[in-house]
């Protein structure tokens, strides 16, 4: 099983990772981060396959992947 770690303070809420995760494991938060933006959250109960698509598309290099 794989997982991702999101730097939520750095996240700009572009939601590209949300759009490209094939497992639908990344969700918009309702809370705001220090920048005043809706960051994203990872559903650690889902089946992350470590495909790295979220990390590859993130313009702000906010995502690390462990596999």
């Amino acid at each position, binding site marked *: 099983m*794989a997982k991702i770690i999101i730097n939520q303070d750095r996240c700009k809420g572009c939601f*590209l990772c949300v*759009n490209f995760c094939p497992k639908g494991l990344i969700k918009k938060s309702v809370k705001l981060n220090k920048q005043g933006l809706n960051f994203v959250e990872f559903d650690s109960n889902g089946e992350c396959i470590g495909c790295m698509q979220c990390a590859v598309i993130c313009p702000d*290099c906010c995502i690390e992947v462990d*596999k």
Partner: protein
Amino acid sequence: MKKTFKRCQSLYDLPAHYCPGCGHGIAHRLVAEVVQELGIREKTIGIAPVGCAVMAYDYWNFDCSEAAHGRALAVATAIKRVHPQNIVFTYQGDGDLAAIGTNETIHAANRGENLSVVFINNAVYGMTGGQLAPTTLLGQKTSTSIEGREKKAHGYPLKISEMLALLPGVCYIERVSLHSPPEVLKAKRAIKQAFKNQINNLGFSLVEILSPCPTYWGLAPKESLDWIRDVMQKEFPLGRIK
């Protein structure tokens, strides 16, 4: 479990000033990863443009110089000729490379300077407020073509990559895109090829990257990527040009 993706040493751990979903952030990371993977961080010199990427040197953990608007390839020529052992590249927008800097671009390519160019085509002048660029598509609305680009008044989208491919000094030109994760990985391979060509003394290499500017396209980040996929790449076909 082991780390399969993380920020590399060539990209400082700093917040970037770009708008949400901006392609510059992805392209910066790709350049950093290529420099890291080729093991050339200590001898790489990047030339930052004028445009939204004017502060690229703050994000890359290797030597950089700034250049006046459009003059990146003139500065790169000088640095490479004085320091031929270093790996020198420019990073330039469409306004920088194909409007104010067209002259420097064409002559550096025509001289076959042994340089690598990362050309960010976002079809607008981002930094100054989304004005029409040479690469703006026909019909595309910008702050200086509010009814859309019109061929009689504004001319046609400039295919500078195809034009440069005619020059004998040019060894490699490829057009890539950032519109999906697989395309981002292809873009990285092309950037790596451009750097390898320089390492092998093959001459002038350029990678044109179709890159989203959600802010001045008036689209959400994902819609911007879809616009590249569905519209922009029809005008600017992807693939190896030379």
